[in-house]
């Protein structure tokens, strides 16, 4: 099924796409039919800079377990660094 279920978040990041590094401004997280990943549905993440155009994009397609592991790893990493090391 095509859920249209999409979360959009603003980000301040650098991402490396097909044409090199670019300043990323948003990320879309959604569940849909993947383009390449061999499954009926996948968790999809697009890191984008909409203003710069479609060529500046990093796409990820993964299964649910991988998405949870990734999300948990990000949160664990953030919790483990000394307070004040990273700008919020």
């Amino acid at each position: 099924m095509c859920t249209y279920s999409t979360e959009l978040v603003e980000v301040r990041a650098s991402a490396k796409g097909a044409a090199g590094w670019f300043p990323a401004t948003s990320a879309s997280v959604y569940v849909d039919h993947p383009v390449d990943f061999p499954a009926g549905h996948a968790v999809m993440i697009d890191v984008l800079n909409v203003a710069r155009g479609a060529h500046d994009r990093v796409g990820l397609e993964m299964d649910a377990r991988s998405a949870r592991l990734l999300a948990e790893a990000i949160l664990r990493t953030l919790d483990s660094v000394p307070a004040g090391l990273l700008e919020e």
Partner: protein
Amino acid sequence: MVRTLRSEIATSFIELSGHGAESIEVYVATVAHPSPRGGVVVIHHLPGFDEGIREIVRKFAVMGYNAACVNLYYREAPGASSDDAAAIARAQGGVPDERLVGDVAAALAYLRDLDNSNGRVGVIGYCSGGRQTVLAACHLDFDAAVDCYGAFVVVGTPEGSPFNFPALTPILADLHCPMLGLFGADDQYPSPEQTSELEALLAHAGKNFTAHTYEGAGHAFFAVDRPSYRPEVAKEAWSEVADFFDIHLSA
């Protein structure tokens, strides 16, 4: 020298003036024969203007129709790969309904103006294109429409969604042509309850609507390059499409 025995179809990417007189890219497959024939506008799914949808355009030409599909994401991402373009379009909330109608109108006019057009043109769309097919058929003078598992027809997208696709129930009374609906019993977008509601609403409005809900199939059962593909169901459903267009798009 090689002698051509028979010309079949010709394909090209053309530029048309779409909604707001803006340039749009359209993939066309036309039949290289002067006898009058119908046309089919194909509306692609949310993942974009990809090779799968262009194969469907060519299939309609092989079936004897002139066919055209608008790249609905051309404005956001001209020349981009279909997946990159879809990512940008998704991040911007998808295609506004008004723009969709204007772009599809351009493809409809193009097909009707072809030298070998019999003046009759149908529309078919898949996934989000299914909803957009209903939308287009309520606004434009198509001769037939086929909604393939379009969600958010009888309910709109939920609050908080980046998409703003309102329910089409207020305009269903404006449906201009006979419509065929092809759905999967295991689909939830749209659910069988929603497609039953669509059937009831259109019957109440006195519209010509036939729906088929296939057991053992979910969303995107036509998509040959995805695990959702259900060959037996797709074959049967293609036969329904062929019969439906044969009835309504013949001269």
